């Protein structure tokens, strides 16, 4: 194992190199990130034996990955923001066709007004596209997700494409020391991709066809089952990962000081670190604060979320997303989990970080304070509750 000083993008590219994809398709223009540039250099210097296809759009990047996967190849692409939205049509073809493509998405703002700073509205808008959705917190986790992603996606019980999300700039463009696994370890962890869901001259198939009302919903049911099956496959994969690489992950979510917590912030991605630091600080002052970091939005950790929040006095969902006219989508999902489990805990939604706006430690401290005293249901950090402008 060697150590390197890498950005989140570069760490993810190192993980993908170890995963040996056979086809990489990418559109290189904004809002694309460095991950595909690093991969193109790896293909150029011969350290990654893959077909690298420069395409003319994100829509084509995903189409190309689908074609590669339908030929039995391990395929990779990456995108971000409006690129993901332009690709959206093809996301459904990939998931419905059960092609286990892996894609890195740099979570960035969506138009208008557009910018290239981080928020999570791009990927959260695609929760219903049938993809597994993971959210990394740091560069090491990004690399490890890259390696685990194919093993999860390609498992026959799952056969579902996998979107690994990295917070734009905060994670994709900041540098950390990252452990790079050995090639031999990676090969032991991740066998080559084998599938029957591919073009085969000896056994011709119709692929990616339409299906009428009588069978269509059965395909959709099976697609749902595939994403649900990822729950146990993620657990198995993380266990095997820990055995070979020594790093442990905690499944669909990661809990911090939640055992006895009265007030819990539930969030995604890189902001979790600052939440944990703030929780530590509050604990020194006698406030029983905890943090839940959701690692997978799909499959959603319904039982786990309900279990960890059940005994809290109040929780906040802090997210870089808003479903206009309603609330943040993570909040909707978390509330549904609690409702289904019959848990009755007061929850509040805090929208922050849109368009890359900074979320500070004092903002987070204020969230803990607000949910202790009660506040409006949906709040915009730095602006106030939704009734603020009324």
């Amino acid at each position, binding site marked *: 194992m060697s150590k390197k000083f890498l950005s989140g993008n570069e760490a993810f590219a190192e993980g993908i190199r170890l995963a040996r994809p056979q086809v990489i398709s990418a559109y290189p223009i904004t809002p694309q990130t460095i991950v595909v540039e690093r991969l193109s250099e790896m293909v150029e210097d011969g350290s990654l034996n893959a077909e690298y296809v420069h395409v003319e759009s994100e829509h084509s990047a995903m189409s190309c990955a689908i074609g590669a996967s339908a030929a039995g190849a391990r395929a990779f692409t990456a995108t971000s923001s409006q690129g993901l939205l332009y690709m959206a049509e093809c996301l459904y073809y990939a998931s*419905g*066709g*059960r092609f286990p493509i892996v894609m890195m998405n740099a979570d960035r703002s969506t138009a208008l007004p557009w910018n290239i700073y981080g928020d999570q509205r791009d990927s959260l808008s695609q929760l219903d596209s049938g993809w597994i959705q993971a959210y990394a917190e740091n560069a090491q986790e990004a690399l490890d997700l890259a390696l685990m992603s194919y093993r999860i996606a390609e498992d026959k019980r799952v*056969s579902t494409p996998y979107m690994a999300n990295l917070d734009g700039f905060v994670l994709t463009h900041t540098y950390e020391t990252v452990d790079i696994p050995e090639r031999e370890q990676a090969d032991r962890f991740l066998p080559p991709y084998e599938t*029957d*869901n591919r073009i085969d001259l000896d*056994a*011709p*198939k*119709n*692929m*990616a*066809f339409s*299906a009428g009302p*009588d*069978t269509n919903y*059965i*395909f959709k*049911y*099976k697609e749902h089952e*595939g994403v649900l099956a990822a729950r146990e496959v993620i657990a198995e994969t993380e266990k095997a990962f820990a055995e070979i690489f020594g790093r442990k992950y905690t499944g669909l979510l990661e809990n911090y000081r939640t055992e006895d917590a009265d007030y819990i912030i539930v969030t995604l991605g890189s902001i979790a670190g600052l939440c944990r630091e703030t929780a530590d600080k509050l604990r020194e002052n006698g406030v029983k604060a905890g943090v839940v970091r959701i690692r997978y939005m799909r499959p959603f950790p319904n039982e786990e979320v309900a279990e960890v929040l059940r005994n809290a006095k109040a929780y906040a969902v802090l997210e870089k997303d808003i479903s206009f006219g309603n609330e943040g989508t993570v909040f909707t999902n978390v509330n549904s989990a609690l409702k289904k489990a019959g848990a009755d805990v007061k929850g509040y939604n805090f929208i922050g970080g849109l368009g890359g706006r900074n979320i500070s430690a004092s903002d987070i401290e204020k969230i803990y304070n607000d949910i202790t005293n009660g506040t409006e249901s949906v709040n915009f950090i730095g602006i106030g509750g939704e009734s603020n402008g009324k």
Partner: protein
Amino acid sequence: MRPHIREKKCFTFDEVPENTSFEAGYLTTVNSGWRSIRPVINSAKCVGCEQCYLYCPDGVISIQDGKAVIDYDFCKGCGICAKICKIKAIEMEAERK
């Protein structure tokens, strides 16, 4: 080779594949209902040159015993075969319902 028209119309849950792929060579229905004119081959004239076979966009023409034969279950009546036939062995006739 002519594709098979699948006899079976209903599939049980277990028969539906996990992914959207299925053994090739099966079609669910015949498909020619909107044809208003049909190509008719004059076998006495036809020399089996295969030009119509090559140009047919639907792949419904085959050569049997040296003569062109049309599969009316799938011919859409576009008329390209009649147009391409140099010896005028194909004529388009009104479809009689």
